[in-house]
């Protein structure tokens, strides 16, 4: 059995699962204290589920802790960056596009040295050892322990990043080092930004991991625990201390993955409707479709892998105006329970319309009986039109797709959606996040530019797949359960016809846990 816990901004959800079956589920307000929050969640499901401690094989935790630390600029460590790129790149030094409020929290400890590679694998230059040693001396002098390392084309050739990290480790044995090739993708500015954010979270990550460990120990659990990443796979306690930033956006990912399990669908659109907004995401082969654009985290442009999510300003608390012609984007938010008409308030909301058109019974239904039927009809149509358009923007083609509805605002949908081939509202939809955490698998990913004129396609794919498999096994996957999840091939414009950027991803079940 497994326990999945999702620590969100407002709510902490927990589920106890046996295989794919949900034994019990619980929802509570998020506590400020990581340790206590997890203890409370464990107590709830273990008491309710009446399980033996030894039956729990793993605990999976999803958390927004690290995203919030970046957004709020708190508990971040002073962080240095060494980039191997010279003589190229001097025009755009590290952190040149950062908002000053977060750059000043990390301090301005940027260094550029000779090194890095070209697109075709040749060196830009060998590593400038003298400059590297000077940079490290400077970092030691400034007392900085969190250090990011980047090098040109490191996703294709990580040799220089590895060498620089080894040299840092020799001279600063207790440094926390984040190498950009382990975190981001092609695009050195965005990738080293991602590595910097990751490095800046290292001290906090160590604290959070020990709080989680303490919570489990206090409740007598000896099983391993894992933290969910934003691609829907897991990392072990050892990994999260090194890669806390890979938890960014894991909430929406867990919601999508949970919706997949709860509905039994692997390819579908998921519409998660809350009080103020709805999020549309795409499930492809049971995993979220990833965004191809750059994503700003706390104002810093990064290229983390992130789920492709379209947020729209429509939810249960959305204001209904213009005689029903307009619904949202303004919302009464969490004041729904006091301001909506059915709850005795005076603001007409989308929830009031859902009650008036008979799709749901909440609050005092008699309070919306006097609404103009034409207004109710107009706003009901508007709500469905907005949802239809959001689905249409995200679906891969014109073919209607199965749609899974989750979240409290799912009550707004009472009619057929033109864009949907079917609409599914699964049981336990309210704790989809925790379910997504509990069922997560372990993955491995590689990205590289390959020239098919030098290596034929079949061999290149085989070679990269093996590298991805090795990464997944190192992260804790059972080798027998590995499967190829995705191969992405992108031609490189204006270059020789056969240069292709390939990204391969494999996933598998966790070892020793059922």
């Amino acid at each position: 059995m497994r326990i999945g816990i999702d620590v969100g901004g407002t709510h902490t959800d927990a589920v106890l699962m046996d295989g794919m079956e949900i034994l019990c589920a619980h929802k509570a307000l998020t506590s400020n204290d990581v340790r206590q929050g997890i203890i409370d969640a464990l107590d709830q499901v273990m008491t309710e589920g009446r399980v033996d401690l030894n039956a729990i094989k793993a605990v999976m935790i999803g958390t927004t802790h690290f995203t919030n630390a970046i957004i709020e600029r708190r508990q971040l460590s002073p962080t240095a960056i060494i980039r191997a790129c010279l003589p190229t790149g001097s025009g755009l030094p590290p952190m040149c596009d950062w908002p000053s409020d977060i750059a000043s929290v990390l301090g301005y400890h940027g260094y550029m040295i000779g090194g890095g590679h070209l697109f075709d694998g040749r060196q830009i230059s060998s590593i400038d050892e003298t400059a590297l040693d000077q940079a490290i001396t400077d970092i030691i002098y400034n007392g900085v322990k969190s250090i990011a390392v980047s090098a040109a084309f490191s996703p294709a050739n990580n040799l220089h990043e590895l060498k620089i990290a080894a040299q840092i480790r020799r001279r600063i044995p207790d440094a926390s080092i984040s190498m950009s090739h382990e975190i981001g993708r092609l695009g050195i500015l965005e990738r080293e930004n991602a590595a910097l954010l990751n490095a800046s979270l290292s001290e906090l990550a160590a604290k959070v991991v020990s709080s989680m460990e303490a919570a489990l120990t206090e409740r007598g659990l000896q099983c391993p625990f894992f933290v969910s990443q934003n691609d829907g796979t897991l990392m072990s306690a050892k990994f999260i201390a090194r890669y806390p930033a890979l938890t960014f956006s894991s909430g929406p990912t867990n919601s999508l993955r949970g919706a997949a399990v709860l509905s039994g669908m692997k390819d579908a659109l998921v519409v998660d409707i809350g009080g103020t907004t709805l999020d549309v995401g795409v499930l492809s082969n049971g995993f979220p479709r990833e965004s191809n654009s750059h994503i700003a985290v706390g104002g810093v442009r990064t290229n983390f892998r992130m789920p492709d999510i379209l947020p729209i300003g429509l939810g249960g608390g959305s204001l209904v105006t213009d005689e029903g012609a307009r619904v949202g984007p303004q919302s009464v938010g969490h004041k729904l329970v006091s301001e909506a008409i059915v709850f005795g308030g005076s603001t007409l909301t989308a929830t009031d319309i859902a009650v008036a058109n008979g799709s749901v019974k909440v609050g005092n239904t008699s309070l919306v009986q006097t609404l103009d039927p034409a207004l109710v009809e107009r706003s009901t149509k508007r709500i469905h039109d907005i949802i239809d358009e959001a689905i249409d923007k995200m679906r891969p083609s014109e073919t209607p797709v199965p749609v899974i509805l989750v979240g409290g605002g799912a009550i707004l949908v009472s009619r057929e959606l033109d864009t949907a081939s079917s609409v599914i509202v699964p049981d336990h939809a309210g704790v989809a996040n925790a379910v997504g955490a509990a069922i997560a698998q372990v993955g491995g990913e590689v990205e590289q530019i390959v020239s098919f004129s030098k290596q034929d396609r079949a061999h290149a794919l085989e070679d990269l797949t093996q590298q991805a498999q090795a990464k997944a096994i190192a992260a804790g996957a059972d080798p027998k359960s590995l499967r190829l999840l995705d191969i992405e091939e992108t031609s490189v414009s204006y270059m020789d016809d056969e240069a292709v950027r390939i990204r391969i991803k494999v996933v598998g079940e966790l070892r020793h846990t059922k």
Partner: protein
Amino acid sequence: MKTIGAEHIKDLCNGAAFLATGGGGDPYISQLLAERILHQYGPAQLISPDDLPDEAFVVSIGMVGAPTVTLEQLPTVDEAISALNRYEAVTDKHIDAVIPFEIGGGNSTIPPFVAAMKGIPCVDGDGMGRALPEAQMMTFPIYGVKPTPAIIVDSFGNSELLECADALSFEKEIRAKAVAMGGMITSAEHGMTGALVKRSAVPHTLSFATKLGALLRQHDGIIDAIEPDLFALFNASDYGVIKRLFTGKVVDTTRKIISGYDVGTATLQSFNDASRKMEILIRNEYLVASINGRTVASVPDLICIVEQETARPLNAERMRYGQRVAVFGIGCTHHYRTARALSVTEPRAFGFDLDYIPLEEIDFP
């Protein structure tokens, strides 16, 4: 506009992305670099071709290669300035001003910042008035400017002198050099007199793109609200004619790389009438647009696409199903309307079997 400074670059890049007609790559890196350098050196003087002395010596400058490479191989501050200095040393000529060869995309930002560094003016104009993929398609060679001597520089400080018989051989040579020298190079080329600039350059495009970029950010990016001002801006310019060709959503895209070109088609569908469809043929840029089989715009006229709710210019690489877009057809400037110019820029020059019909002559429902 008398000068161009760091505060103009964001608008310039936005306008340049519109005029890039779907090509030009992601302008983020060129924008950052130009802003930093102009911030440090102060604004560059912008000079109208009309005010340029006939005997002034002007050199065109920009980057050539694969945009994907610059994602990793970031620019240095000195590539552009060393290309100019090297050009002066090799040719023994003094450069009085620089000019962009391509206003569409990131190459619009290089001449302004290198002008500021060198303390010379930047000519307000360019060699395309849009984006096009190859050197022989520039107005400079079409109107008699020799592309070489050209100096190409890579980010390692290597430089080479190119001497080519004509624009076609120059294009072939410089493309091969770009791959050999790490994927991206800076080129100082098309040296010409002020008199030749007046004859060959598309004038006022730097100030025009800056105004255009600012305009596209008005009215919260709602394109319907921006349209009256957008039409007024183009109608009063050398482009002259602008039409809204289509409003609808992307329903299909196909793309692949052929001979270094990003080749494909996109199909759009009208919101009001599902049977009304627009097809767009792409070779890096949007080149031909037809509605239900009838051509409504073709290269060298401009086909520009923006997202309906943000007015953000839509790059062909970013196009995908479900996007809501507005498509505009814009007349090319008179430079491309001669038989000589059309022979290298009409649809047949890109392998499409159809005649160029000027936008304003196409009856449009």
